[in-house]
């Protein structure tokens, strides 16, 4: 009984993410539409109209409802820590028919569609007794263009910037631009990709608190937008809405760069669950 109440909350979290685009993303798209013209403007205006229709009719924004990717900040004193995985699995499974979201889980060996969805869950332990759950439904069009570059340390910062710009240019219209880019610099191969994905959780328009990093973010935004790829790759001034960088110390001999691309339909939603299992959306 109590379990289903939490699962219902998580279902509502997924529903919100799929149907309502966060305000910072909508505002960035509106601003982009105002500075574009011709085909590029038409693309963005249609996208904005679609966001409105989805909201008004309570339907997922995009048919690719993505991989339900969770980021869980778990307070170590939360009393049901061992049950959280099951809650998330159940919520995502039920969401397939209840919202509905597209059955997007496929057996990688046989190629068979399983008929429901299975989440990807990232955990971080924190102090305290509550649970902060963010869902980021990740579409394949953009995920397929994400990439890991294991650079030589000698390539330096210029090499990092070049890798990001080249990746976005090579992706062209495939990942549904204007995109949001998460970049993880340093760490190991897996950590760089994780940091890149986690960087997507930052608000569009927010800059990294470290001024060294924020100036690289600004530079990359300008350079990529000068490429002219534009909305949906059909040409224009807006190829990215934002670039977010996170970093970690690296081995002296390696320079991993994780480049994670997110489509304009940058869906995300967050909720807090308390020890008595009350929950609220943030």
């Amino acid at each position: 009984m109590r379990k289903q109440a939490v699962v219902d909350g998580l279902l509502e979290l997924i529903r919100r993410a799929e149907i309502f685009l966060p305000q910072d993303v909508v505002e960035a798209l509106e601003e982009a539409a105002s500075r574009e013209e011709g085909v590029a403007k038409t693309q963005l205006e249609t996208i904005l109209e679609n966001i409105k229709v989805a909201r008004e009719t309570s339907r997922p924004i995009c048919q690719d409802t993505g991989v339900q990717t969770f980021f869980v900040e778990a307070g170590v004193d939360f009393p049901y820590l061992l049950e959280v995985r099951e809650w998330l699995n159940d919520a995502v499974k039920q969401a397939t028919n209840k919202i509905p979201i597209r059955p997007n889980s496929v057996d990688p060996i046989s190629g068979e569609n399983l008929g429901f969805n299975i989440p990807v869950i990232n955990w971080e332990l924190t102090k305290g007794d509550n649970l902060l759950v963010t869902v980021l439904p990740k579409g394949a069009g953009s995920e397929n263009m994400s990439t890991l570059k294991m650079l030589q340390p000698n390539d330096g910062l210029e090499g990092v910037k070049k890798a990001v710009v080249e990746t976005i240019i090579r992706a062209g219209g495939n990942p549904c631009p204007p995109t949001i880019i998460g970049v993880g610099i340093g760490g190991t191969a897996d950590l760089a990709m994780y940091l890149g994905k986690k960087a997507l959780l930052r608000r569009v328009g927010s800059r990294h608190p470290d001024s060294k990093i924020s100036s690289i973010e600004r530079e990359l935004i300008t350079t990529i937008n000068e490429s002219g790829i534009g909305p949906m790759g059909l040409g224009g001034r807006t190829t990215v809405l934002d670039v977010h960088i996170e970093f970690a110390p690296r081995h002296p001999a390696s320079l991993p760069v994780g480049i994670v691309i997110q489509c304009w339909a940058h869906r995300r939603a967050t909720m807090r669950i308390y020890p008595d299992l009350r929950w609220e959306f943030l």
Partner: protein
Amino acid sequence: MSKIYYVSLPIKDTRKFHVGDTIFLSGRVFTARDKAHRKLLNLKELPFNAKGMALFHCGPLMKKNKNGWKVVSAGPTTSSRMEPFEAELIKKLGLRVIIGKGGMGEKTRNTLREHGCLYLAYPGGAGALAADRVTKVDAVYWLEELGIPEAVWVFTVKDFGPLVVAMDSHGETLYQ
């Protein structure tokens, strides 16, 4: 000068359209992603007549109720995944109109020119809006075998668009 057209399928004179033109399309479309492309190419005979239909790169989000299937959200999927199959499918089915997003490769570009076929781009992700232009779900093929996203769905659409002529039948393209 870019123009706006309201067009019904089948389109006979595809060569009058040029990159940058906008089309609102009415008629029948069938969806096919990479798996379905392979299937269609391997079959001697199709279970439906694709003549006059547009090919739509799409894996729709569908819901079944007591009156049958309903489209919930149905924007385009990334067309480049279909590049290895497309030239052959255009020839096999005599396709004149392809709807997708993100653009296609050189081989398809040449085949579009040779066979008078158009590649039309619908804004990716605008799935709710696209679903509202589907007036009827006519049929579905290989649903059990391929699953909802990969099955071949036949839809009737009305004023489906805005579709930008992104690759025309003169060899021109908007993709750099």
